[in-house]
């Protein structure tokens, strides 16, 4: 692996990765007596594609929920852009520039693709309820500007043909893409993807991979993702955190992780003598 400095490092494909964007310090999360996450620390750097992997029940989604502010850990600190983050509501976290997609799609089925993506811009809208309701003056101008951004994302993700289609009528793979579009609409610094390829066929997976790489490349968005498909994870990510039973058992480049004996044990099991 390349030399890691406070300013960043050079990724395997030659991309320049920046300084630390988010840091998790000794996070522990409990539900009653059950420990979902035990004393985990890792950092996410600017411009990086960072994967969190692990067997079922390892605590990956809980970790993502801690990052997005949905769960507040009992112990440990979350540092974002050089400042310690106090306990926050998810919408406050969203305003800080963190957007996410969900494992089981959470879109508005009755609304068109365009409207769904527009909701991603909500945190950026400034005009008040009244002026939006009567759609006058600043509100109109603001919506036009937001629509322009949304159209650029529609163009980017190649979903022009379903712009006006209600989301409920779309196939699964496209819904996933619309969800990505909505997350992108918030212009996040950090994008969290919860199993973006789950349930997809090979072709849809390839498309999704391409879009994730393109997003990272074109917008410089930092991406943290959870994924089960090992091939995808190893191809896509710069660094991987491996979790098992709520503990961190590995952290490093895909090659390092792949040769880590603890990781091999967790995934393949080990012979007992």
């Amino acid at each position: 692996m390349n030399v890691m400095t406070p300013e960043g490092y050079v990724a395997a494909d030659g991309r320049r990765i920046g300084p630390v964007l988010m840091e998790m310090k000794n996070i522990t999360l409990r539900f009653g007596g059950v420990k979902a996450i035990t004393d985990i620390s890792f950092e996410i750097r600017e411009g990086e594609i960072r994967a969190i992997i692990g067997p079922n029940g390892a605590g990956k989604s809980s970790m993502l929920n801690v990052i997005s502010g949905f769960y507040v850990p009992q112990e440990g600190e979350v540092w974002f852009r050089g400042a310690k983050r106090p306990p926050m509501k998810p919408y406050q976290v969203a305003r800080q520039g963190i957007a996410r997609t969900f494992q089981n799609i959470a879109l508005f089925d009755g609304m068109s693709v365009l409207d769904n993506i527009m909701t991603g811009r909500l945190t950026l809208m400034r005009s008040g309820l009244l002026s939006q309701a009567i759609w006058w003056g600043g509100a109109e101008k603001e919506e036009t500007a937001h629509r322009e951004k949304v159209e650029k994302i529609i163009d980017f993700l190649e979903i022009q043909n379903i712009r006006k289609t209600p989301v409920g009528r779309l196939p699964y793979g496209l819904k996933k893409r619309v969800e990505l579009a909505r997350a992108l609409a918030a212009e996040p610094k950090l994008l969290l993807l919860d199993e973006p390829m789950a349930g997809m066929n090979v072709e849809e997976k390839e498309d999704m991979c391409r879009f994730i790489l393109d997003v990272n490349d074109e917008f410089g968005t930092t991406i943290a993702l959870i994924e089960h498909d090992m091939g995808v994870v190893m191809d896509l990510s710069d660094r991987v955190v491996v979790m098992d039973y709520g503990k961190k058992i590995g952290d490093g480049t895909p090659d390092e992780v792949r040769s880590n004996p603890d990781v091999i044990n967790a995934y393949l099991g080990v012979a007992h003598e």
Partner: protein
Amino acid sequence: MNESDAAAEGRSIPALMALNARRHASRPAYREKEFGIWQSWTWAEAHEETRALAMGFLALGLNPGDHVAIVGRNRPALYWSMVAAQMCGAVPVPLYQDAVAEEMDYVLDHAGARFVVCGDQEQVDKVIDVQERLKHIEQVIYVDKRGMRKYDHSRLNALEDVLAEGRAAHNRFEAELAARIGRIGYDDTCVMLYTSGTTGKPKGVVLSNRNIIETAKNSAAFDHLSQREEVLAYLPMAWVGDFIFSIGQAMWAGFCVNCPESAVTMMTDLREIGPTYFFAPPRVFEGQLTQVMIRMEDAGRFKRWLFHRYMAVARRVGPAILDGNPVGLGDRLSYALGDLFIYGPLKNTLGFSRIRVGYTAGEAIGPEIFDFYRALGINLKQLYGQTEASVFITQQPDGQVRSDTVGVPSPGVEVRIADTGEVFYRSPGTFVSYYKNEASTASTKDAEGWVATGDAGFFEEGTGHLRIIDRAKDVGKMADGRLFAPKYVENKLKFYPNILEAVVFGAGRSFCTAFVNIDLNAVGNWAERNNIAYSSYQELAAHPEVYQTIRGHVEEVNRSVAEDPMLSGCQIHRFLILHKELDADDGELTRTRKVRRNIIAEKYADLIDALYAGKDRIYTETEVTYEDGRKGAIKATLTIADAAVAGGAERMAAE
């Protein structure tokens, strides 16, 4: 300015564009839907952009006589690139954008292109692939910047940057550009277009300014095209028709060319633009009709009744009203009501509300399909043409339209039928030569300028309309000497919505057999309504009930073929439904989706043997090519079915 001025000044496409920039300065010339909005450019703006681009090309060192390959979907920037190349004295060579790298390799090599203008990253990748071998490709220019940031830009430029450079350098190049435009002669090459290559390697058809402009002038006058027309440019830019409609006629008449947002939004964009002048191959009209019928099946009972009631009225009197023939007052009233309730809204949904002239060509169109559109009051006509003729050979005048003819010779075109039945023509649009292929030029075009079409046909007594039977070389003899015209039968089969493609075999054999491709849209919808589960095309194609339906269609066709004693030998005795769709990527169809008979016969020789050997099942493995060029194999066991034949043919077979 009037037409004679245009004739005096417009001796080249750049000259016509300059003329339009003056006479139609503020009228829209190009529109493109991007980011959800129609962006438009007036003639004056388009002319400025094109000139800047031409100066950018000069800055990159484009020389007179160079070939500039253009590959991408229909976009104003690519049309301007073609004209900009012409301004520099170079020759634009548009290529099919869905060609795989090896097909592109052949054409780029043959044309010796120095510059390639690409639509997006996908095309750039293909060009970079072949650049390893083809050292003559010096500059690659791309329109869409997406994904291009990390490429080596030493010989790669964004079109936007070329434009900017051209603008910045206008003081330096203004004089040179004017001189180059001034030197373009009427008989200089306007464009080089590659034939789709139904047989063998594609050939580069060289068309002069005279060819294109004379043809545009004649055909625009024939259909009274004016600057007020709107066309939708969605057919491949490499196809001669698009060049004539979107460049030749658009420049001559000064009308607006609209480019859709992407290939998949074409139907929505069609509806938004509502073109007045429209061209589509029969499959587009077929597809739309199938969609309408499927959606009507799902409609409520009252709507369905209304639809069928008024469509019956339209079928009875619609074509007559369109042709201006006398129709009774009662019928006229019914038709007017139908227009209010059904035809008007339907045309609006299809995007045909404003259509004044519509053409279809390339393949035979089913009479029911043709009549459906004419009944709605859409002036759909047929034309017959080819690349070598700058499209037009014959076309149907308003008021003399039928589904089984291709019309009378276009203005300025002479047509004669040889003793063999082959159709020959001579016209101002007749091509100059095949590029680097004198032998083919000589065998196609004789010293007097007559060109063999390769099609067999005859002029109908009385009306003087041309009828085409089949490709002259495909018309053959069966073992017992009876006439074998495969296309004639295939077209009859393809008129059924369930059948997408058919290939008939029988030359030199004692009876005819066929491969059938089902239409996944139509058959899939039928399966859904009848609760028939299937997981793949292959499984649906092999379903016994699907076989039953197709057998019904084949037997109906047999009865209709038997009515013509000359062709009764072409009835289909045995058939099978193919386990995969015939595909241009596998070389089975041309890029314009015409069946490549010999390649199919070679590739599926085992299936043909089985058809004639009397087997009723056959196991086969087929190699397929995916869109990204990888190869795979499909394995299947196919059922072979027998079909009843009518009349005399059965006796012959029994003997």
